[in-house]
């Protein structure tokens, strides 16, 4: 109802809907669609990228060339984002990232058409490092898969963590058995563990860790402890601290509305990804309400203002158009029979990102 013009806005959503990791894509899509569902003049084209970069590129081509979309969004994975985003934003398409935030797009590679609504990739890991300090850990064992996002994760953690490293390990991407790593952890004399192992890797690690009988405190980013995945990890996750910019129990109006609407629409609890999809939709709506899509500069400015009520509470863009936001520390708890998260503290307050200075945008 706030929208000034009646012109139709076409949004292309490229996301992962089939195969491994499709849960994330589905949540982003559902969250986004929930946000924009009442706006008839927003047309959303959703396509499945199968988690393959080349397919994502081709879908972007299709959406730009044939569907003539104004805005692209939806990509879950950094490597797919790296494949699609640079080319798209150079063709004057606005890209709103609901999940991936690779450092290359935050620093030198930042672009006026690229907006990240989720986080810069390092953020949650940085917060974990920050939390480790405040929890008094002195000697941490850290591990992540051997690929760029994994390296970013450990770099992010080390950026804030002040103690020693008892060990640093890169595991094989897709690895499921961690007996060897856990043995090393046990032998390392560490006082805590930080890990970034998304998807099935994290499930395997947590279960095996719990079975190993070691009870050092574990910290990780939210990805391995989010709503969709917690059920599969089971009680092994109880008590684990994880860092996230969002949580179901965040006490603000927008979030309450989101959580209840999401539950009633889809019949399940929303996840981190759903919240990000939702916020992306809300951001888009706010910009459309204050400008017209035909005026690209105006539209970009409207986006940059980020005049929307985020499910995370306060939300602002840094000059490189990545969020400035609080990153919370959550703890996995049980609500009745259901595993879920509860905020315990703030890990980093008003965290921007490490690449702002490298970006030429002002």
């Amino acid at each position, binding site marked *: 109802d706030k929208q000034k013009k009646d012109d139709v806005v076409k949004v292309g959503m490229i996301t992962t809907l089939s195969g491994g990791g499709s849960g994330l894509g589905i949540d982003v899509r559902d969250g986004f669609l929930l946000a924009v569902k009442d706006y008839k003049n927003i047309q959303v084209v959703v396509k*499945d990228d199968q988690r393959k970069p*080349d397919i994502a590129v081709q879908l972007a*081509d299709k959406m730009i060339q044939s569907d003539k979309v104004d805005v692209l969004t939806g990509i879950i994975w950094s*490597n797919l984002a790296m494949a699609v985003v640079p080319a798209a934003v150079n063709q004057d398409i606005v890209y709103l990232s609901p999940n991936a935030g690779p450092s290359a797009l935050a620093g030198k590679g930042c672009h006026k058409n690229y907006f990240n609504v989720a986080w810069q990739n390092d953020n949650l890991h940085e917060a974990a490092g920050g939390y480790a300090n405040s929890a008094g850990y002195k000697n941490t064992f850290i591990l992540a898969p051997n690929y*760029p996002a994994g390296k970013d994760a450990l770099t992010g953690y080390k950026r804030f963590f002040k103690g020693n490293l008892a060990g640093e390990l*890169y595991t094989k*991407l897709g690895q499921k058995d961690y007996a060897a790593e856990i043995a090393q952890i046990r032998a390392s004399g560490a006082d805590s563990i930080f890990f970034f192992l998304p998807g099935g890797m994290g499930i395997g690690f947590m279960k095996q860790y719990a079975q190993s009988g070691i009870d050092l405190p574990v910290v990780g980013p939210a990805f391995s402890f989010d709503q969709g995945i917690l059920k599969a990890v089971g009680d092994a996750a109880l008590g684990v601290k994880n860092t996230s910019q969002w949580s179901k129990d965040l006490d603000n109006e927008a979030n309450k509305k989101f959580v209840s609407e999401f539950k009633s629409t889809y019949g399940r609890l929303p996840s981190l990804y759903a919240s990000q999809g939702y916020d992306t939709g809300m951001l888009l709506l706010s910009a459309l309400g204050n400008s017209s899509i035909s005026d690209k500069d105006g539209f970009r400015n409207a986006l940059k203002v980020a005049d929307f009520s985020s499910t995370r509470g306060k939300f602002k863009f840094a000059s490189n158009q990545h969020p400035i936001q609080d990153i919370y520390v959550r703890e996995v708890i049980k609500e009745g029979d259901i595993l879920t998260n509860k905020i315990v503290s703030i890990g980093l307050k008003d965290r921007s990102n490490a690449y702002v200075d490298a970006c030429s945008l002002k």
Partner: protein
Amino acid sequence: MIKEEKLNLIILLVLFVIPFLAYLFNEPYLTTLTTKIVILSIAGIGLNFILGYGGLVSFGHAAFFGIGGYVTGILASHAQNSEQMFFFLQFDGSNQILFIWLISIIICSFIALLIGYFSLRTSGVYFIMITLAFAQMLYYFSISWPAYGGEDGLSIYVRNVFPFFNTMNPINFYFICFTWLLIFLTILKIILNSSFGLVLKACKENEERVKSIGINPFKIKLISFVFSGAITGLAGSLYTDLNRFVSPSVLSWQMSGEIMVLVILGGVARLYGPILGAVFYIILEQTLGGISENWQFWLGLIIILEVLYARAGIMSLFLKDSKS
């Protein structure tokens, strides 16, 4: 029910007119899609040469597709960023597509020579697996090697330069790829009808016999393997230019599998089989993907029906005298 030559001609004609139709109806994406079909066809034709005619089932052809792709990406990215490639050599890469093709073919041939030299000691299923092993080594290497983006891949933003043509125009780029398709079809047709071709086909069935008429089957197979690797490598090079991007996923075993599926789907040991396979596969992927979230389920179902009822690939559905 028609003759194979006629069917082949029809396939080429259709491929030829699609971009014009796409232009007429202002559907540029159709041209991009057809370009993809043509590129995958080239990759498939490369594989089919050894798989169909030589009986060498390589499950590692993504290695060549990927190396061709990475050579292109690396040369171009250096040229774009004017970064020197080797610290001891004054060389900034290149964005001249003709030069890039040359280098891709040379490097892919060399790698194929190495991989082939070791792999061809084995046969049958062992060959399938050893080729897979080499491709997997490259895959894991590419994921964890940070210089060119690791798993994030490498973007080159604009296509490489072809003299007198603007390659960013989809139709121009399409016809460059289409020309390559024609070139390879012609070359392979000539080779398959030559003495070498006959010996290669003989190796597929009975190496003992080939040896006892005085020909070393290893040599024949190795040469074919190099040919095949070079062709698939060039396809990879084109694919990078199509997407203006390359990433480890082109080196993955799924990619090898996909190339193989195209070949089998179209019809093994038929020159135009991979083209039909690619057309069929991409059309299914595009249309089913639009219909249902669970489109891969239906894709699977259709492929199974195809295997059960079109014994020798899709080609055989159209042909009267289908080989048994």
